[in-house]
């Protein structure tokens, strides 16, 4: 979306044009929904948060600054909407046994048979990476996932998460280290 057409669209939205708003949603829905899915891990929650983000943008339309790009602003709104929803979900949730521990057993069983010591070949490296990614804490998993699965730059991730670029780099590096360490452990086993 060029800067000019972006401005035109926002001008129409500022005038209350819901058709323009729908067009804007269609243009950015993949980006916002994908982001929300990465953060919330649930399609239902991701849709709710993505809708929240667009509605918040509509309500904040008068504050749109034509001199600035829309995308970083929208990303930041979407990040806030996701965090709001996450907080609501967490506040309602009670501590339970971690699913990660259970699924870890499954993947370990596929990797190696403790009785024979035989290393299985059924699990590919990609699956291992995805599996270990899920076991990472959210703080380090999210920047990594946004970077590789959503193709976002460090700058964009920083906007979304409301943190510094340095912080993003730190968390990505940390995620890589933890992944590397765990993968080495699993692969060696």
């Amino acid at each position: 979306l060029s800067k000019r057409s972006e401005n035109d669209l926002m001008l129409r939205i500022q005038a209350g044009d819901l058709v323009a708003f729908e067009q804007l949603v269609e243009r950015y829905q993949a980006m916002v929904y994908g982001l929300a899915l990465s953060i919330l891990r649930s399609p239902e929650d991701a849709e709710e948060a993505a809708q929240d983000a667009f509605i918040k943008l509509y309500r904040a339309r008068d504050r749109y600054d034509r001199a600035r790009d829309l995308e970083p602003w929208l990303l930041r709104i979407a990040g806030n909407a996701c965090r709001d929803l996450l907080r609501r979900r967490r506040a309602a949730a009670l501590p339970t046994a971690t699913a990660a521990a259970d699924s870890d057993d499954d993947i370990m069983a596929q990797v190696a048979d403790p009785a024979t010591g035989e290393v299985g070949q059924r699990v590919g490296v990609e699956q291992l990476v995805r599996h270990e990614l899920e076991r990472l804490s959210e703080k380090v998993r999210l920047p990594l996932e946004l970077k590789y699965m959503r193709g976002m730059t460090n700058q964009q991730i920083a906007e979304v998460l409301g943190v510094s670029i340095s912080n993003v780099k730190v968390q990505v590096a940390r995620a890589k280290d933890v992944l590397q360490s765990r993968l080495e452990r699993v692969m060696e086993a």
Partner: protein
Amino acid sequence: MSAGEGAMRQPPSPNDLRRHPAKDAHCAHFRGLMRDYADGELTAALGAALELHVHDCRACALGLARSEHEVLRLRRALPTTTVEPQPGFAARTVQRLVQDLERDPELEPQLAAAGNGVAGPARGRRIGSRITLALSAMAATLMVIAGLLWQGYAEIDYSARFVVAKAFHTHVERNGVRTAAVPGALGEGDSLVTDSDGAALVQLEDRSDIVHPGANVHVAGDSKVAVAANQLHLADGSVEVVTSRPTEVALPDGSLLSMGIGTYSIGAIDYRRPDYVLDFGSPDLRMRAETVSGDAAKLARGGKTDTIVAGQVAIWHGGSIVSIDNGDANSIVNGLRPTPRRPDLPSDQLLPALRGRVQFDNRAAAPAREVLLEIDFLEGGHARQVEVRSGEDGLFEIPSGRHLDAPFAVIRPITSELPNLAFSMPRLYAVDRTAEVPVLSEPVTLSDAPTFDCFVVDDEGLPIEGALVVPTVVDGLLGMVWPIESLLTPTNYLGRGSLHSLPNRLEPHQQLGLLLLHGTHAARWVALPDANSPAAASFQWRLQLHDRVVAPHRVGVRSEANVTQDVLEVIAVEGLPSAYVVSRQTLTFRADSSPSALVGDGQLWLRQRSASQTTLRGMYYQDNVLRVSQEATQPIDERLAQLQPLIQSSGFEVVRHHRNEILATEGPHSNVQVIEGPSGVPLSQARCYAIDPDGGAARVLGTSGSAGELSGPLNGWSLLAIAADGRIAFNSPLSPATASVLQVGSLSVGQEHRPSQSQSLLLRMTAVGNNTPHGRLHATFWQYTVPNDWLMSNLPVGQYEAQLPSGEVIRGVQILADDTVVLN
């Protein structure tokens, strides 16, 4: 293994990398950039510099290959995908918006925090405030419920049963008998030992049916866990514990780690992760415990309890526990009980200012004055940072504000004191809010340590990762810059570097400072204040680099094919009196290759070598044209003018600044003709020394012949020649040199020069002779406090001047080779 896996390069093994550690500062610098390079986040200039470096450095090439492999694997496992919501998403969103507007048409925008506009109207703020209050109340209620549930866990029977669920290359030691581990119970007195390539999973089971298992303990290789007194003990190595209910593990030093629900990492420091594990260089540093995620862990040791919040690392160091904030100390944890507010204070009233005290723990709690503190107040998953400075009495006060409602604070002193470099690690402090004036429950204590931290930040105060902090001596007399690369530290992602064993004795004409280098920032040299100066007490170890644009130079200098050139990259460093060589590359241009090369920013010195001769040229780059730099001699002349009085007072007469233009190299020895500068007159019978331009070390080469000829192993070192009449020739473009190699003698201060009142005589002795019978070169100054017997031994032969406390100067103190002292 996926179909495309075969095309992926195999990563170098970690062992291979360990065999090839970073060789020098340059390597360490580029190591810090490799991940950004592999991710495509590095600027083109830095990327090109990195490529050049790894071309000639096998160790870094391995490191880069590993980073690239890591990214390639991630990109394959986590390909960038576009995820679309269910069809009709846009229409549903519009529909929901319409419903919202119908329900509350006056609702105004509330996105003040979104950062793209001005604050909203008052009504919006009021509504937002109500929503916030409602959410806060809801959150508080849920926290109370969660707290009750937490208390409810106390009903669980904690007595545990330990079961080996998985075991690879692992043994069980039972009653002195060692057998291969198989899945099954781990009984009282049993030990589980993993081989270096082994791993095991131990599950903690209990009689509770609420959660099962209570915890998964992943035992790493080279580790040992044991069951004693119905408790799991980590005897050696590392474990990661994923808990489903509160769990305890005993640690080798007798401490007990109590975990809540979360993931915890306990064990030996992994030096392969230098980014966020500080290397204290101490054999006492053995283990750490980290709350990776979830509830806080509590570490009880010797009657003291440390709380480890998520993101903090507690480290056993030198027999005590220190906690290190890793920059993410923003987690408040379940199970910690905040100190209640003062009951007489209405809930909507701010707490009065908080007071605290900074003191030294090993100086009888002496107040630490003028210490700058960074304080993170932690509450509800957020940290609010304030900075305060302690006063003359070590007291500090934090103004009243909402941040004081937070029950905990992480305090990080960022000011140090020379020469002992006092510093303490940040830790969690509780705020006593029941007092009339809130106070920290204990004073902030600083401890002296031979190791200290410094923080490198950019113009905006953001930490710079991968910067190099190089302790550097600038010699005002020799005009040389000596980086002590063995002491350098790269900064981690917090911008933190740890320095050890700084030289504590320098000669008066030398000054110690820190050279800061980073690829995308302007280099800087920060002088360390003299230990006795008032500035030392308040010197901030927060070092700043400045932004700059890096423009790589493409050097296209070549006169003929098959010529080898040394390219010395020289940068001007803010604060340094002279330029600093940051890299050397040897480029051989062949007839069939491009006669150009990319080098970094800065001024260049090219040393062109051919079969018959070596020529040194100063170059500079301007308007895309590389020019021979006539101006290059100008700074030298200025430097000479500055040094002239000092050199003359030292007894040397500088005849002419000299640059050897012609050095013939052949075989293992260099055949050198020593000539006097532009006149081209050979210097005969000159004593010649080879000087390491980096370290300042020197060795004797010999005496030049009647035509100035000399043969010796120069090996790229600089050449210093001292003619029989005292004239000096030095082939370094940076400075002339004076040199004095002195024999050992002793000095007895005559009765007539002893001060009558003071037992302390400060002799400031300046070696001024140029007799050089030995192989090391130093222009040498000393300060000695004369012992009571007035006899100082092991003094170098030479001429001195002595300065008495009264200010009187005794000139012409001369120590001769036979220990004779002559006072003129």
